[in-house]
């Protein structure tokens, strides 16, 4: 029974896929050309050739980004009235129709992307192994090259799945072709940027959370490899990419629950799901605002976001447009902006929603820790450095950084020291002027009797430049002294 149902769905999917031959051909030519260029790149250009063909990768990427066009074509019954008459009258149940659509996307887009990119990866690996002079000389380069190629491939596929799933969300929730297209691009950009921006701006910059430069980016995003900040954890990255792909597939399957509520009467109408519209517009606006607060000179561009917000509303509601509605949307825009500022303030007051007290949960045995505080004082730099335990404590009045060797510590010791530092991270004086200075760029403001000192905690394994955790907070001079006193009190810490 299940098998015959599956066969039916597959037959419907193939029937649907056959109607998009032109799109399929264009896609395969694009991907094939990309694969060919990537494979032959550098074969004729000497010893020091690159493994990357930017035109080749560009074509492979273009083939990946064609996803929304495929999705729009396949889900044509949702935005085209004439097509909806044909498709809805065909002898299929709603689950069969929906699954056959997803299968058609697999046949038309996912499979070609998978096959051509796999061919490009295998061919590039073989080429580098057999033809590259530097690979022949240094065997390690093969691993490094293949490592990089594998990561790019995994990230690329995760990105393609992500983009297709966003397109499916928009296709199912929108009634017009143009809406599906522009919401797909807006949401894909927002969902990709929002987690990174929110963490970097709200939790790290404003909230004072410890950053982990070597960590993977745990988010559902396009494209994973763009945000990849690791160099060594290839398999973890690939697992993360696979998880991303599975999330995308899960999202596509979940959209059935909205799809099943539709019939041909909603084809060609504006955004069908009100909830989708409100969420999508708010997410895009918030992401845009978060992008702007990273640099004070970008803040005036908030106005552009506001204008686009109103234009999207006017275009979507053009059938029932009135002055009262425009006023209402302007008020909503103001409320959304106020909510965003409130969110920033909460992040500030709660130290990044409590994230400033968080240390990455991994085994920190044999790590090194360094805390140093510096503040401007009549043009000079006073640095208070704490390196512990079994290391030394240093106070200095000159600007050069201090070279040192420290003893390795246990996980428990590192956490004990970090806890003291992070206690001060959450004890910062919360003042509006300080909060506001995050957006005006004037952090070196007077604060009562003392100047602001910037204290940094670094935890790392091995060399200094491989810093694993970095946390930065601003304290007053008195708080710095108290911090040093507290650190000195810790047992087992030798201060030089």
């Amino acid at each position, binding site marked *: 029974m299940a098998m015959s149902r599956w066969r039916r769905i597959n*037959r*419907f999917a*193939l*029937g*649907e896929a*056959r*109607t998009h031959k*032109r799109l399929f051909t264009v896609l395969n030519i694009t991907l094939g050309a990309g694969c060919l260029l990537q494979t032959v790149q550098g074969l004729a250009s000497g010893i020091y050739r690159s493994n990357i063909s930017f035109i080749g990768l560009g074509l492979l990427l273009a083939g990946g980004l064609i996803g929304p066009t495929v999705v729009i074509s396949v889900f044509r019954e949702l935005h*085209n009235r*004439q*097509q*909806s*008459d*044909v498709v*809805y*009258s*065909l*002898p*299929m*149940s*709603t689950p*069969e129709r929906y699954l056959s659509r997803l299968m058609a996307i697999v046949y038309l887009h996912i499979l070609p992307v998978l096959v051509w990119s796999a061919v490009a990866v295998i061919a590039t690996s073989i080429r580098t192994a057999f033809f590259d002079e530097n690979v022949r000389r240094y065997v390690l380069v093969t691993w490094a090259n293949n490592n990089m190629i594998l990561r790019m491939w995994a990230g690329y596929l995760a990105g393609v799945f992500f983009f297709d799933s966003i397109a499916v969300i928009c296709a199912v929730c929108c*009634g017009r072709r143009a809406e599906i297209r522009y919401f797909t691009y807006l949401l894909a950009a927002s969902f990709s940027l929002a987690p990174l921006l929110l963490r970097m701006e709200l939790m790290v910059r404003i909230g004072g959370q410890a950053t982990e430069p070597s960590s993977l980016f745990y988010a559902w995003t396009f494209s994973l490899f763009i945000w990849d900040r690791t160099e060594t954890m290839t398999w973890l990255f690939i697992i993360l990419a696979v998880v991303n792909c599975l999330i995308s597939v899960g999202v596509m399957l979940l959209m059935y629950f909205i799809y099943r509520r539709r*019939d*041909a*009467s*909603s084809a060609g*109408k*504006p*955004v*069908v*799901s*009100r909830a989708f*519209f409100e969420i999508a517009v708010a997410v895009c606006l918030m992401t845009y605002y978060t992008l702007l607060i990273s640099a004070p000179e970008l803040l005036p561009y908030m106005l552009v976001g506001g204008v686009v917000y109103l234009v999207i509303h006017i275009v*979507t*509601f*053009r*059938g*029932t447009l009135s002055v009262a509605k425009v006023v209402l949307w302007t008020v909503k825009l103001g409320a959304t902006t106020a909510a965003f500022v409130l969110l920033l303030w909460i992040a500030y007051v709660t130290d990044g929603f409590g994230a400033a007290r968080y240390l990455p949960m991994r085994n920190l045995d044999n790590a090194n820790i360094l805390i140093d505080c510096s503040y401007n004082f009549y043009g000079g730099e006073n640095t208070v450095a704490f390196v512990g335990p079994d290391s030394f404590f240093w106070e200095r009045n000159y600007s050069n950084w201090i070279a040192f060797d420290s003893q390795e510590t246990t996980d428990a010791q590192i956490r004990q020291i970090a806890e003291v530092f992070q206690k001060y991270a959450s004890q910062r004086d919360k003042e509006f002027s300080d909060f506001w200075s995050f957006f005006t760029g004037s952090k070196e403001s007077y604060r009562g009797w003392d100047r602001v000192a910037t204290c940094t905690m670094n935890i790392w394994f091995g060399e200094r430049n491989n810093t694993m955790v970095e946390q930065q907070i601003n304290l007053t001079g008195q708080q710095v002294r108290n911090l040093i006193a507290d650190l000195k009190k810790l047992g087992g810490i030798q201060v030089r």
Partner: protein
Amino acid sequence: MIEITNVTMDFVGTAVGESKRAVRALDDISITIPDGCVYGFLGSNGAGKSTLMRLMCGVYRMQSGSITIDGREVWDNPEAKADIFFVNDETVQYADFTLAALAKYFASYYDRFSQETFVRLIKTLGLPTDRKMVTFSKGMKRQSIVAAALSCGTKYMVMDEAFDGLDPAMRKMLKDIIVDEMIDRNATLIVSSHNVAEINELCDRAMLLHQGKLVFDDEIDNIRGSVSKVQIARRSGVVTQDEIEALGLEVMKYSATGSVTQAVVKGVGEEITDKLEGLSADFVELVPLTLEEVFIYELEARGYGYESLAEN
């Protein structure tokens, strides 16, 4: 048999930016379409014919009531939908298909699709199989879709204004092909058209919709016989509408010139003449109506005539 029971359909603006005011497209419609007949859907513009057809084919979801095909609810039911084929009034959706691709497309969905029938019909119609339909004339596109529809082997075929815009020769050819094929299979054809004469010529049964409500549903002969025009002459004075109505007849249209009265009344011929004997008229004549005239008088009686529209 298709049974349509108490079907009501409201279009409510569910999309963002749409008016939330409900527009009633169909209001408590109940009809039965027997097997093996040619059934005509008549109605004014916006009466709800296309909406009812889409509901019958599972294109729209039912809000209230039920539509069954041989006892099976049609919405979201592949078994029921495998027995019905919908040809709407457009052809643009097939523009990118060649006829070979069109046949393959429908063969993927309809288990009973007959390639042999398709090839035979295409040959009969003289249509090219290798050219995209976008290059076809309107008549050729219609013929192609009808050929594909007939090849799907469904028991019911629903055609929404499928003959509109075709020249008389093309209409006749297409109708002949459809009727021949449908008769061979004892299949049922349901057509809507604004051309009442065409329905009159093609159909065994018909129904009339106006503003979402059912006006009548019967065999064509009964419909024609259900309304008559009478001419009454009385020297002693003109016959008034009240006088006719006092005899228990429903007057749909009334006019008087001198001593001659013309009225369109509901009822069967003999029943009307029997009742009119009570008027002591010098002359009573019953004029049979065409289906088109019945259509016009029925709608005029509901305020859809030239005079009513002109007043508005």
